[in-house]
């Protein structure tokens, strides 16, 4: 029983971190309706950044977020300007191939600069918290709390601020938004950069838990895609729920079946959800977007 409890708790916590890594993807999809296939490489770059700050400056990855989050915002803005924006009014496949090319390019630059070695940071918290028979890794708990705070803050921003309303207006009717004076290209840029900044935050939260290497993004982006589709593309709460589902399934199947099958099981879960709820757990039919509900 306590093993089961342990697995579920760990699964929920790691799932929260997976969710954080996926929110940027779902946000960008929800507003721009594009999939950034270089999302995993954004994570990789930000993880190297967090690693460098930790190793070279002797700080820790959480503190590194202060620099990494704005740096990733800027990086996202530059990528938007140079690659995404020029492709937006072209056929949809152009963005797909452009971001795929960016992904391969970034992997190779990382390979050249950092080699294929796994890099990690020293442990930050000496020991786990114990609640009864259950052990909780502090890094996981902290990551989970950051995810919850982030989700709540993002929802609040979209619901109440002028920027949030402009984002929703843009999603609901882009032309009408422009007629009302909303600079839609700017909203797209801010959203893409904001989504990238969120990946930066996720990278800082993940660095204490995982090693970084040039193709680390591939492992995680697959999970992120599953989470985003599971949750209903464009749904932020959905990403949180999807992340937790994936985390729990992975945790249970790794223990009871075999670690190697962990991924297989959440893809099976994914297939079932797609069969019975094709718009995702919280997605609405035909409304694969942010703010397309009251």
């Amino acid at each position, binding site marked *: 029983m306590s093993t089961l409890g342990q697995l579920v708790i760990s699964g929920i916590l790691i799932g929260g971190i997976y969710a954080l890594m996926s929110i940027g993807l779902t946000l960008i999809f929800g507003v721009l309706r594009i999939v950034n296939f270089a999302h995993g490489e954004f994570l990789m770059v930000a993880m190297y950044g967090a690693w460098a700050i930790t190793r070279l400056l002797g700080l820790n990855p959480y503190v590194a977020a202060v620099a990494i989050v704005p740096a990733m915002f800027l990086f996202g803005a530059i990528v938007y300007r140079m690659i995404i924006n020029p492709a937006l009014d072209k056929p949809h496949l152009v963005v797909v191939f452009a971001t795929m090319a960016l992904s391969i390019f970034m992997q190779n630059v990382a390979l050249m600069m950092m080699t294929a070695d796994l890099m990690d940071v020293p442990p930050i918290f000496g020991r786990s918290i114990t609640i009864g028979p259950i052990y909780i890794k502090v890094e996981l708990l902290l990551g989970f709390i950051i995810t919850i705070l982030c989700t709540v803050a993002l929802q609040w921003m979209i619901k109440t601020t002028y920027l949030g*309303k402009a984002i*929703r207006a843009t999603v609901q*009717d882009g032309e009408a938004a422009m*007629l*009302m*004076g*909303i*600079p839609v290209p700017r909203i797209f840029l801010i959203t893409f950069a904001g989504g990238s900044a969120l990946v930066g935050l996720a990278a800082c939260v993940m660095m204490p838990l995982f090693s970084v290497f040039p193709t680390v993004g591939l492992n995680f982006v697959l999970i992120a895609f599953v989470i985003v589709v599971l949750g209903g593309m464009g749904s932020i709460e959905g990403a949180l729920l999807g992340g937790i589902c994936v985390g729990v399934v992975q945790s249970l199947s790794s223990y009871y079946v075999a670690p190697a099958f962990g991924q297989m099981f959440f893809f099976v879960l994914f297939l079932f959800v797609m069969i019975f709820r094709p718009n995702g757990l919280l997605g609405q039919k035909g409304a694969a977007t942010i703010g397309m509900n009251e």
Partner: protein
Amino acid sequence: MLEVRHLNAFYGPVQVLHDVSLSVAAGEIVALVGANAAGKSTLMFTLAGLRTTHTGEILLDGVAIDPFAAYERPSRGLVLVPERRRLFPFMNVLENLEVGAYCPAARSVARKTLDEVFELLPVLAERRKQVAGSMSGGEQQMLAIGRALMAKPRVLLLDEPTEGLAPIYVKLLFDLIVNLRVKGLTVLIVEQNVHHVLHTADRAYVLENGHIVMEGKGSALLNDERLKTAYLGL
């Protein structure tokens, strides 16, 4: 106030407007009428900076507004209420109005403007929390105009505001337009409801296949034989 000179507008290679020139003086209500597919909405969207490419000049207070993107025009005083209202359907009345006041100058006085809009359109005040998509057609049209007023326009472009409205709303709407003029607004209005609009407007232009074919005082056009047969169906 608003002046259009030798405007040719295109959707890709297809030309829809041909050498259109018109002007709207400050405080005037000017109507634009014409059969379906004449290019009325095309003209409105072109003035607002969307959809088409064009040659010719669009001047607002003597300044060319062509270089400005669609989203920069409201802050220069020009706002379009497009065909079919185009509200933000999942946002409530208040949010739609707030978004109307997006440009900085309008936002800084949004609270005051909101009171004015509520006074002008009391139905919106009663329903401020209702989701726009769930309102009746007439209410939606009032909201679309209210939202545009939140931007503090000097020139308001209205594209078929009475489309699909019950007669009571049609009357309300024309009263509102007269009311707006009293408040100093300049209005260019596209209407299928030719009889009604020519009574209200100071002047009117008739658009046919992308050409301006007639212009004159509203009352004069009402009695024009050619217009009667072509558009009033008399």
